[in-house]
């Protein structure tokens, strides 16, 4: 299918590179699966910076700390296949601005969210046109933010939030067969990152909010023991899907700590079967949501720091800085 507004590749299409090592039997490479080096309740570090895009009213750039395996692969590259990936995204906020002429009257601010992966963001090349999962992320993000913004303060106005994902989380480890994880778990981490970054960008645009909303992910995972047996399911915070053999269920929340409210909750998967025999209270849905909230609390501390920096920059602007 040719796109007249873009430069097209060969008409017959191309195939992604197939590595010889991935053609070998799975057993020979299973040792290479990255292992989680963090404690179950330990989060990855988040790098969050606001105001990098001066032409926007507010902006934020978010990056997750690379996992231990990825950091090792970076410092001493051996294989061209990256063991896992680390989220990188940029978020811009344009507005509040007048609604287009064609739009009908709205007493509240009209929020538009737009999430797009860069073509090189994931292991598989992404298309230029938004696909279903990107639209889905946009809708989830909108729900998460709508409950935070004081919308009636800007009647007849629009607010555009655009997120460009430069590097996404993996949905599964690359060595696993494509169907071994049924769900795109990486999307949940991406959503959590989107919520945190968008929150920082909205604050940077100085839009009135009830609180700083932060995103967090928790999952119930069942890992392999060294002798190949599935271990008992465990609750982990901020899971990297590449590090786990099977994720039973996962939950992402958008959480406002000072009000103790959740504006968005997305729970996926079924861990009821595995928790049937156990009496472990840690494997209920409540504990999963609590785990996600705890992860969001962790992200909130980073968020608060970034927003404070943004506020200091704004306060310092009249005395120094550029005029344009």
């Amino acid at each position, binding site marked *: 299918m040719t796109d007249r507004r*873009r*430069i097209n590749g060969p008409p017959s299409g*191309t195939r992604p*590179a197939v590595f*010889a090592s991935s053609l070998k039997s799975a057993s020979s490479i299973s040792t290479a699966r990255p292992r989680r080096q963090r404690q179950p309740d330990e989060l990855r570090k988040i790098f969050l910076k606001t105001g990098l*895009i001066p032409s926007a009213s507010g902006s934020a750039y978010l990056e997750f700390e690379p996992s231990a395996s*990825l950091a090792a692969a970076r410092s001493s590259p051996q294989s061209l296949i990256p063991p896992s990936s680390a989220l990188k995204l940029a978020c811009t906020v344009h507005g509040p601005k007048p609604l287009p002429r064609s739009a009908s009257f709205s007493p509240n601010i009209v929020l538009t969210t737009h999430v797009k992966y860069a073509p090189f963001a994931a292991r598989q090349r992404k298309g230029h046109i938004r696909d279903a999962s990107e639209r889905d992320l946009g809708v989830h993000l909108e729900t998460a933010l709508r409950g935070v913004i004081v919308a009636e303060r800007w009647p007849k106005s629009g607010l*555009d939030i655009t997120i460009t994902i430069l590097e996404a989380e993996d949905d599964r480890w690359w060595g696993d067969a494509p169907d071994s994880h049924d769900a795109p778990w990486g999307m949940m981490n991406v959503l959590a990152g989107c919520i945190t970054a968008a929150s920082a960008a909205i604050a940077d645009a100085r839009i009135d909010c009830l609180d700083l909303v932060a995103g967090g992910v928790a999952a119930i995972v069942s890992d392999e023991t060294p002798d190949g047996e599935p271990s008992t399911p465990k609750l982990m915070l901020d899971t990297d899907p590449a590090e786990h053999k099977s994720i039973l269920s996962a939950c992402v929340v958008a959480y406002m700590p000072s009000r103790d409210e959740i504006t968005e909750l997305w729970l996926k998967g079924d861990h009821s079967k595995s928790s049937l025999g156990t009496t472990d209270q840690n494997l209920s849905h409540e504990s999963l949501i609590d785990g996600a909230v705890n992860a969001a609390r962790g992200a909130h501390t980073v968020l608060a720091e970034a927003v404070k920096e943004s506020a200091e920059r704004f306060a310092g602007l009249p005395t120094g800085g550029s005029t344009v």
Partner: protein
Amino acid sequence: MASAAPSVPPSLTLPPSQFARLQPHAYLLAHLSPPASSNQPSIRANGRATSQFRVTSANTGSLTHTNGSAVVRVGDTTAVCGVRAEILPTDDIASWSVSHSSSSMNKRRKLTNPAQKPTQEEEDPEDETHIQQLNLLVPNLSLSTGCAPGFIPGAPPSALAQSLSHQILNLLHSTRLVRAEDLRIWYQPPSLGQEDLERHNESEQMDVDAERGEEVGKDKEIKAFWVLYIDIMIISLAGNPFDAAWAAVLAALRDTKLPRAWWDVDNEMVVCSDAVSESRKLSLRGLPVASSFCVFEADAAAGWRAVIIPDAEEEREIEESARKGIQRRWILADPDGYEEGLTQERVCIVVDKEEGTGKTVIVKMEKNGGWAVDGKELKALVDISAQRWGEVKHILEQC
């Protein structure tokens, strides 16, 4: 910066930032031609001298899922470029068998061309045709990233994005930056027994007369090509997207590593090795660097009347008066978004330097949208671009 806006009367209490928004043209003009009494130097509103470029930085290899990537910041304009290599098997190319047999003909025709340049070693005449005919380079630039207000995210690429994509592809082709040899995946069939080989040769000589001229690597055949998807995301746009985008493409291609690939007879497909030690970098031809300029005119918005244009003779008189201190036109290097909005005439020069001699070679020179820049000005701009080439080379070599 407040002190640098001398045209604001003291009675008017308007902060410079608001004056800049209300009267952008007058604001920039006041900076560029301060009254003689103020002893202020002529300087742009952003604090740069007219031929000064913004601070540029580059960073490569930070994106995990790319074969090569780069982030280039030119002032507040940020371009991220990722290069992804995918495989195009020759079996998938509809016209391959036809074009391949005719390629040897092409070669002969081209070789009769008397003026083969001696400076470029091992010139491959098929280079351009393969890269261009098979669409092996696929650059696309995206502005729908929220990089500036006015670009609606999710909408199809704007005319600006399309024309920038085209310019990048055109420049990749015309500079022949990427060598087609780097993109070819060859297959050398295992050598047959002596008898078989002879018979094989005989039959081939009977069948394919046209290939008689090629004596080396007769059995070697191209099984596939690498296709480079070069995607550029302008994350932040504050003027001059082309320079930043091109620098990002250049840095990303310099960073690009292609895995060793071979034809696997058993699986009938191209297979790659994931060992970093076996991968190789692209060997690029030269290092073309882009520099953009715009021309700010004092009388551009001189009112509602029709602009009366002096002809070339009068133009020279204006130049005379310019030497007496009344300057009416300023050529601004690396314009930011504010300056781009106030100017119409644009110049873009891409230069490279020959290795060894250090001679400046112009690869592309565009000027459009006005008549202030003529031969003399272009010559000066080429010199500035050559200087900029050195700066950018230094930046790219450090990352």
